[in-house]
């Protein structure tokens, strides 16, 4: 029986923090709460552990300013003191930005804003933007998404309706910065998959490296999720 959990953290992952996997991040917060002397609700049953839940798992190597973690604070302290207490005991690259009462159920989360920084060591080629625009203007583009649940090992996915907005934010000699609003769940579109699809179609435009960063999360109606 799912119980309603009452408190949330929004935290940032950057720098060295991006190499900490989703599961390791869960363990890290469980220990950080204990180190900070903050008591949180424990699950009952065979293997009791501090209950925490992360809204959207973040791929290894991605940074984010909008990770949301849910828990139940049992210590009687003001929520606005929680970030400092946790930040004092968190490792480099993981920083709590705010702590607040839970508002929107996780299932209402719809879209994510991303910043993608494409690095081109031999110079940003001309025409990348146009090629991407051409691809995303297609009426539909069905790709195979790896899936552990499916027998075939993948599921088919039309990525076009999942790209809600995109634009070029900055073009530099060796970098191209893209902003995108993508579907966040049921199903979600991982921007890495989008860029892989693009690079397969236009091998000359394949970047040498990409930084992925989550910026903000939204509800269906476009309001910020909290």
């Amino acid at each position, binding site marked *: 029986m799912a119980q309603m959990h009452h408190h949330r953290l929004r935290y940032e992952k950057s*720098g*060295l*923090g991006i*190499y*900490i*996997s989703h599961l*390791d991040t869960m*363990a*890290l917060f*469980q*220990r*950080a*709460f*204990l*180190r900070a*002397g903050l008591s949180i609700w*424990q699950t009952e049953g*065979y*293997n*009791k*552990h501090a209950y925490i839940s992360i809204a959207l798992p973040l791929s*290894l*190597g991605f940074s984010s300013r909008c990770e949301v973690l849910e828990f139940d604070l049992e210590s009687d302290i003001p929520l606005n003191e929680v970030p400092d207490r946790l930040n004092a*005991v*968190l*490792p*480099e*690259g993981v920083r709590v930005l705010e702590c607040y009462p839970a508002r929107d159920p996780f299932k209402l989360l719809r879209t994510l804003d991303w910043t993608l920084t494409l690095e081109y060591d031999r110079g940003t080629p001309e025409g990348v933007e146009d090629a991407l625009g051409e691809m995303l203007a297609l009426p539909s583009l069905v790709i195979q998404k790896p899936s552990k649940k499916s027998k075939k090992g993948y599921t088919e996915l039309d990525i076009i309706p999942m790209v809600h907005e995109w634009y070029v934010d900055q073009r530099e000699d060796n970098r191209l910065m893209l902003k995108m609003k993508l579907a966040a769940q049921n199903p979600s579109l991982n921007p890495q998959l989008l860029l892989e699809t693009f690079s397969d179609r236009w091998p000359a435009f394949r970047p*040498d*490296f990409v930084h992925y960063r989550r910026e903000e999360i939204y509800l269906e109606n476009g309001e910020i999720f909290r």
Partner: protein
Amino acid sequence: MDSKLERILLRVQKPARYTGGEYNAVVKDRGEVDTRFAFCFPDTYEIGMSNLGMRILYGVMNEMPGVWCERCFAPWGDMETEMRREGLPLWALESGDPIRDFDFIGFSLGYEMAYTNVLNMLDLAGVPLHTWERGEDDPIVIAGGTCAYNGEPLADFIDIFSLGEGEDVTKEMLELYQQCRREGYSRNDYLRRAAQIPGLYVPALYHVDYNADGTVSSITPEEGIPPVVTKRIVQDLDQSYFPVKTIVPSTEIVHDRVMLEVFRGCIRGCRFCQAGFCYRPVRPKSPEKLLEQGIAACQDSGYQEITLSSLSTSDYRPLPQLCDGLLDYCESRNINLSVPSLRADNFSMELEQRLQKARKSSFTFAPEAGTQRLRDTINKNVTEEDLMSACKTVFEGGGNAVKLYFMLGLPTETDEDVLGIADLAQKVYVNWKQNASVRARGVRITVSTSFFVPKPFTPFQWEPQITMEEYQRRVNLLRSAIRNKSIIYDWHDPDTSYIEAILARGDRRLGKAIEEVWRRGGRLDAWSEYFDFDRWIDSIRAVGLDPDFYAHRARTFEEVLPWSMISVGVRQKYLWREREQAYKSVITPDCRVQCMGCGADKLLCDGKCDEILPISARREKEA
């Protein structure tokens, strides 16, 4: 972060192993340190970070003004390939700086199969491999740990071996270094002066000669260099450094919990056990201190598990008192307390049940040998009666799985002893039938055998290892004697144990062989996916050495053993007498029943082993 590294990290498995930045990692201001130390563990991050010794010395060194100790681990194969392709030299996790620019590179040597990693890490760092190739600007390469007691096979590569417990000697070594630098001494002057510090062995200052038959004829120190180097110990464990504030890895490691060391040394004197002789004398920590440190370490780390560690934890006299104290703290906080290394002869179900909130169904005992005669020979003072009574307790308490550990190839072992293992396992099965409180789930009795490796500084240091073929014959004999479907037999492959036997009692000529193994691609040899038996044998032969000379040859008492210039405090004559007692199958009582005069008590200032002073006396001492 270096942009090359940034890209590499996303191409390798488990990148968090290579980034540092963990909670409690020590980052100092480069401007305020003049002595940089790279603590290298010659295996992966997950293994190395599980090592308590490394955590202790990390803390000890970082408490010193002007010293910054950082960590470094062996990269996994995928990372090594990337580093070599991109030309990235081995770096320290805390600063990201290349370790070739450090003052010291220190290796912890826990097992022989890590030796190739030492060479590989030096090479990845860009440090000259051999001691004689290093110049004034190269780091001093040191090594400690259990294998350092006979570090001879690595003598070509290690400038200083640190023998025994490093808490005090490491500080002395670094202080001397700082002094020598202030006074403008050269590298060689420093090494000669370091060799005067008790516990530091500088192999290049000792000359080894050989007889025509390949045995060592003499070991000659240079003038003014001590002929024997005695290991160091911590006098008072309560006063010694314990890492209450310790690094909490951001990725899963092997032993991810608070480790509390209850005592050092062992009262037992099992004749095969290197740790049992090398870690003497017995020095317990007080339960009050352990309780205080255990609670503080849990609070600081957020760990929800504490484990008590020692060579034989049930021999810690105040164990019930300590467990009571820790459980008072742990139970309300869902912290799990685990107590491994319990013996069959003082096994307590009451304690087990208090420890395990979720009922444990599997218990492990190590009789080591199948017959009483052979158990007496190895001085494993566990009787069949002890084992049966422990098993009865387990089965009555609802346990339905017992693991039994044995060694094959122990000195004097006969087929009768081998078959005795099958008999003993069958008796455990009958014991289950008679005593099980729950029969419905059946029982699982697992018999495991490993291949005995004779080790230096034990009474069996003169013994030949049996051949791999003979080991396999004994395995087959035992296998055919086990016919009960509830008894499962697992045996270790003999390959690595044979190589370990060569290296464990090797001399410094083996350095060329280790180098050859490494040149032919050897690394991460403790991992079965990397270990290559033929590569080892071919390399040893290629440098003109005979592997059997080291593994299978019986030594005489008169032979100059390659580690004769080292003392662990236990006299050679004592070890030889223990060997003679072994051949007569006469047991030696444990240290608490009677002191047999091994000599290790002389390492203690007051000469009293195994003593916990009353609190009042300790307060007086502290004041």
